[in-house]
């Protein structure tokens, strides 16, 4: 029956093989089949950005992707950022904490994943470039100012660490 399909993919470095319904969204697959609940779902129609993950290193909305489309892909979710051994936060996560870049925290994994892509491509972005990158993520709590601060802080810390 072709309404189901077996997929193989890597999530946060760990390989998985699962049979899924073709209609299952990647967001639901990650959340409810793999039990990685940090990828949040806010609208299911591709506007809010809460479900942003990286697919093969590029940001994507998990709600606008079918699980079957991720067959063979390497996926990074918010759970993949923290150091597994030490529990230490990724510098972007730490910057969001330090700059109070979140309130309810529901949109935050999406912002952090988008920032991860941004700083990978552009380690020293201008404010305009940060806004351009984050324009597809909605936050209803913070008014974005502290998020902008968080990204700036993360960039400067990562750059300082790289220089050292």
């Amino acid at each position, binding site marked *: 029956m072709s309404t189901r399909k077996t997929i193989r993919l890597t999530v946060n470095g760990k390989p998985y093989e699962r049979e899924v319904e073709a209609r299952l969204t990647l967001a639901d697959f990650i959340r409810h089949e793999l039990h990685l609940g940090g990828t949040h779902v806010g609208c299911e129609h591709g506007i809010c950005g809460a479900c942003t993950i990286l697919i093969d290193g590029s940001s994507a909305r998990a709600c606008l992707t079918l699980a079957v489309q991720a067959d063979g892909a390497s996926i990074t979710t918010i759970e993949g950022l923290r150091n597994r051994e030490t529990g230490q936060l990724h510098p972007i996560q730490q910057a969001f904490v330090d700059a*109070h870049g979140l309130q309810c925290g*529901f949109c935050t994994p999406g912002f952090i994943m988008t920032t991860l892509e941004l700083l990978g491509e552009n380690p020293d972005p201008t404010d305009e470039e940060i806004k351009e990158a984050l324009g597809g993520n909605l936050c209803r709590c913070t008014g974005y100012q502290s998020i902008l601060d968080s990204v700036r802080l993360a960039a400067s810390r990562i750059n300082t660490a790289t220089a050292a």
Partner: protein
Amino acid sequence: MAIDIPTRTDQLPTSATRFIGKAVNRIEDPALVSGTVEFIDNLSLPGMLHCAILRSPHPHARITAIDASAALELPGVEAVLTGEDVERWCDPCFTAPEGWGNYCLAVGKVRFVGEPVVAVAASSRYIAEDALELIQVEYEVLDPVANPDEAMASGAPLVFENRGTNVIQSRTYTWGEVDRVFAEADRVVSRQFRWNRVGANPTETFGCICQWDLADNSLTCRGAYQTPRFMAIGRAASLRLPANKVKIISHAQGGGFGGKGGPRGTDIAALLSRKCDGRPVKYIEDRMEYLLAGGGQSWDRYYDAAIALKADGTVTGFKVRLVDDQGAGAEGYGTISAAKPLAAFTGNYRIEAAFYDLTLVATNRAPTYPYRGYGPPPHNLVLESLMDVAARELALDPAELRRRNYIGPEQFPYTVPSGNEYDSGNYAAVLDRVLELSDYKALRESQAKARAEGRLVGIAVVSTVEPGVFDWNAYATVGVPGVGVPEGVKVAVDVFGNITVAIGFNLQGQGQFTVAAQVVADYLGVEMNAVKVTTASTDVALPHFGQGGSRLGVAVTGAILGACDKLRQTFCRVVAHVMQTEPDQVELMNGRLQLKAAPAHGMTIAEVAGLMLSRSDLLPPGVEPCPEATFVWVSPNRNLPDDQGRCRSYLTAAAATHVVQVEIDRDTGQVKILGYYIVDDCGTRLNPANVEGQLQGGVAQGVGAALYEEYVYDPQCQPLVSTFVDYLMPTIHEVPMTVKDHIVTPSPIAPLGAKGCGEGAIHTTPAALLCAINDALAPLGLECRETPASPRRLWNLLHGQHGH
């Protein structure tokens, strides 16, 4: 024992506060940035089923037949719930005023598009949605009531037939000699305003998992619950259960802002569980459900208002007539939000008389729910817009007109005509600082230059008061009984000196867990990481309310201070007994119980707790081996209102003035915010970063309400906004990065001098933006008096002017 709640930080038992007043990192955040917080949709229970809801496509129709047989045959479907079940097992939700509530599923007829009609429980949400497509519902379409004019017309169709009218409530309040001040006025400025529906839209929609215990006939609901205890009582009433048989477990919430209507979804999931032999049923509202009818619609208002002035600009009177389209009933307490302005009806000003005429009307739009601020955002927009019109007519600078009318710093406590007492403030100081911060003179010069070039640049200086720390008494005249909203905590010290704070609410974003930890750590002299804050379910929690009414930061601070003071007194007794002295010879200071006369002699908190838990032989008579204390805080000195609603309601009065400069593109109607400056005064800032976050977040929501967001209905009452493609919440591009400063006038009566600060910015920003837009339009003789001031609306205004 007498409990002492400090109103100043220097009254705390510490030589210097280490956490309070500092922008310490939030204890909430490491888990939130890691994605490991258990929002409700992250939880699965064994045997859990998933609910999907079939909703009405009609604004008003009689249900003549429902056939769900095909749905029941679909593999994976366990149960179908209809109005028939609901009528048998349920009552309509209670409302204020009473008798304007709907059942959780439509019984007999539907009253708005999106009203739940049939619900399905199935093995997955996907299958549950498949099942909805197999359900046949026959409707006899009725004429809808699309707006208040239609609703109040004679012979109008009735939304609730048994009421005999569509008017939910109509009443007036008269405060002072209104007729006289208007008769004696040198100038009366009056205008009409239309505030279109907007709403909360937290990033997480509502969700719950409900489980009916058939043996015990009790119900457990886990979910994204704001105000859990209130929810438990409401569910008990609608589901006909004793209140002690409903247990609410509140999970972290992805935002709230008031509009996270949980009652319907909870009742539906609970009844499905009952129908499925007690299997847990999860309901996760999706965004389209939320936007259609999920509790995110608020403030659908028509205003006709006037102020009376003396020639010198002294404002003497303020009259407001409000017709408020409540939508289909009063289930969401939209009614009482119309009464909230009583707490600060006349804003920052010494206005001697005021009048409020409220008409709350039922229509076939979706029911309205609370939204952050709960009423004052539109009210302040009306008052501040009138102030600006008056300033223009009097050729006075709007800042100057406001300054002339401010309540003076020496006049506090100040009782406003509508009855509330403002605790403290210094409005002129706030104004001075924001004019300096914004370089107001330079802004006006740049405006003059822009105007000379034909550009439409406008500036606003808008002041508001934020009533903080709500109390029931503010709403007594619209049907809410009582005085004193409780917030209870338990503070427990373990044998190692770690501290657990048990509260009745869960995370929602405002940072109250952190505030709680800051206060406990400074009071008991421990590190913040020694404090664990945990949420008690409603069956064991102390009386509490949770988030709401710009209150919780202050309330939880008060509750913790009360519990800590009880602990301190107990510890003093224990230590006095051990050291063979009197309790009043012992003091708590920097985490040690020490002899006042010889501070080197004493015990740490951990030592005292350890002793209490392990050496009952050393305890004084009457002291239990329990280093724990509970305290339920209520606002001090509240009272019942008189027949005009006058009482001491909200405890604190924070204040702010925003200065904003905007430019309107003549040809597109688009508004660009050129600069945004805020100075506020919310007394002691317990965590300045939290306060700034509340301010900036309120600005963003204010920008949304003023410029972008709107629930649009067509003339047949069909909603035209059901996705985020059309409900336009501002992104990072639309929200200005504001320049902020503050002054501090501590509250003399609130815990640690802190004032409620969660709503001030949304109280102010819409008014500021509309006033700035109208300042920009002033040279053309145009005014925009409707929100949102969308490009289409502004272009229409400009288009009329230019006769395109």
